């Protein structure tokens, strides 16, 4: 479960900061979307801070609309953050003496949920994979070779699948091609945004195994976004839980799943289906849908659905706490903060 021992992987000349330097630090990221014709804004990502350590898989969970995809796009500067900063392997992103956006995008790649939309329908998949290396200056022959080696790595026979067009592949095969394409420039970190969510269960298992295998062999770091708690528990070393644009809990996967500290995380976990017809859920852990991020509640955003909400929850937003190492388990809930004024503070 731990990261690949450094001794087996060749030292990467791009590893400037060394093993102790986090791969990525995000501080105070914010992105609102203005709504046309209305004065309001969708607070899609609102003051989000976290760290991705080298060699880990950080899982990001939360219900649809909580800001996971917006966060992913901010990390790659596909959307420009309105506030906050990022540090990639010790270098400030976008700063004069830091790392530029183009260089960042070589080292951080992304795989999306919709396996078909990400591929050019009029191009054999081999050429789709070779496109990045070609654009980065590889010769036609070298780019072709890279593509075939990558197809092999993701478990598709290059002679059989290379010449095929996307419509000639199954969903699982297309997603393998997308993974190959994301790896074509030799990234150090890959953001997987619901990358297995549209696949059948048995195919999802194949792709998860592949992702774990690639991570070991290529010494990768993953940010793994999913709404599926079972999948996130399986693949992640640490987990970040989002609710309405904010981080509500962050910690080692084992700790978060065994002893969740935020009532929202508790409800999410309790909503998992048991796979056991003799242990059915009789009462839903939460009522209603998440409120709209347009008029998010004051104070703690979860308070309108929280069974433990008290007056302090409406008046003040609970802090998450800023210090974070691989072992810290933090939650943005007044019950998790001594002296917050919540009657159950420190009780959990």
């Amino acid at each position: 479960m731990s990261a690949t021992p450094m001794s087996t992987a060749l030292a990467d000349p791009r590893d400037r900061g060394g093993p102790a330097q986090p791969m990525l630090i995000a501080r105070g990221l914010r992105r609102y979307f203005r709504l046309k014709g209305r004065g309001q804004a969708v607070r899609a990502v609102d003051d989000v801070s976290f760290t991705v350590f080298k060699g880990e898989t950080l899982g990001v969970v939360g219900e649809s609309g909580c800001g996971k995809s917006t966060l992913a796009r901010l990390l790659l500067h596909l959307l420009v953050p309105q506030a906050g900063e990022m540090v990639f392997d010790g270098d400030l992103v976008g700063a004069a003496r830091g790392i530029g956006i183009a260089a960042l995008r070589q080292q951080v790649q992304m795989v999306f949920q919709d396996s078909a939309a990400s591929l050019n329908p009029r191009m054999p998949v081999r050429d789709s994979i070779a496109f990045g290396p070609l654009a980065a200056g590889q010769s036609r022959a070298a780019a072709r070779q890279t593509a075939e080696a990558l197809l092999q790595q993701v478990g598709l026979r290059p002679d059989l699948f290379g010449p095929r067009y996307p419509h000639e592949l199954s969903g699982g095969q297309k997603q393998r091609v997308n993974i190959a394409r994301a790896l074509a420039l030799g990234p150090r970190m890959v953001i997987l945004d619901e990358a297995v969510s549209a696949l059948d269960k048995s195919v999802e298992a194949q792709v998860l195994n592949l992702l774990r295998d690639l991570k070991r062999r290529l010494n990768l770091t993953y940010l793994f976004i999913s709404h599926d708690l079972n999948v996130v528990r399986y693949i992640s070393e640490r987990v970040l839980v989002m609710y309405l644009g904010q981080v509500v809990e962050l910690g080692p996967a084992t700790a978060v799943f065994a002893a969740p500290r935020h009532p929202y995380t508790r409800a999410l976990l309790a909503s998992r289906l048991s796979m056991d017809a003799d242990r059915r859920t009789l009462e839903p852990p939460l009522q209603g849908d998440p409120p709209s991020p347009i008029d998010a509640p004051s104070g703690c955003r979860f308070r309108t659905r929280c069974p433990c909400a008290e007056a302090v929850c409406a008046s003040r937003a609970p802090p998450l706490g800023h210090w974070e190492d691989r072992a810290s388990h933090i939650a943005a809930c007044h019950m998790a903060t001594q002296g917050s004024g919540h009657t159950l503070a420190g009780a959990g």
Partner: protein
Amino acid sequence: MDGGQDRGPPLLEVADLTVRFVGHEARVQALAGVSFSLRAGEVLCLLGESGSGKSVTLRALMQLLPPGRTEVAGQVRLAGQDVLALRGRALQAFRGGSVAMVFQEPMSALDPVYTIGQHLIEAIRQHRGGSRAAARARAIGLLELVKIPAAARRIDAYPHELSGGLRQRAMIALALSCTPRLLLADEPTTALDATVQIQVLILLRRLQQEFGMGTLFVTHDLAVAAEIADRVAVMYAGRIVEEGPVAAVLRAPAHPYTAALLASTVHDQAPDQDIPTIPGSPPDLGALPPGCSFAPRCALVRDACRIGPPPATHPAPGRMVRCLRSADVLATPLASLATGDYR
């Protein structure tokens, strides 16, 4: 949940349902002889991966398949009525009365230019007549039944003004408006978030019991089946390969495909181990293998499996399986099935 077969006659009986799509180039055998029955008040889950024929089964029951390009054969009887013979007005009455359908995407049942109330009132008056005011009152009652808060206000909302979970509830209310005897549900919770999915599953379970409807519930998710089904029918390549009470099938599957699906579904597996997978992919429905359709991927395959489709056998009361080696599958503990240690 004992699968008891002797609690009155079945509401729905499907026998040897076969569906072929005939195109210019290819013939697709989407269903190759599907048989099952369903009693009033019972939930049968059709469980299978994409392309296995779940939606085609429901659409065939509703006669919703494109007529020119589809060959349908077999028998479908609802409370004794020959469903596949229905035409014209009788078919209309069947679709809007005896049977209702809910989908994954509520907007496939809701028209964006009408309010929720207009949908419901129209359906109620068509089904049982009566005044507009009475229909409106009943519509509000239905919205309350599906637990839509502030129903008297929300009845005038347009579909897009509701959240995903509320839209799903509105579609369920619309399906119930004709008090159907049979509810066909095609992955109705698949697009919902975890905390909303469990709410809708619990709601459907309750309504189904209150109304005593027979429910045919399609899902690709074992966990959803475990939550809502009385019995499950596992589909593979257009056939039901295994059927039985849900708890028994999930605890001790009798078909290698069911066992493999169970093992490959991510759920509490050790994070440092690969998840068992099923090698290869489902067969081309235009060229099914002559024997067991699962044979090319099956770890237990023997020469005999490739000769003809395995016959249905009954390893226990209320259970059916089509596999020559089901006795070996049943005799193997789940843990070893998952690791493929059973040759």
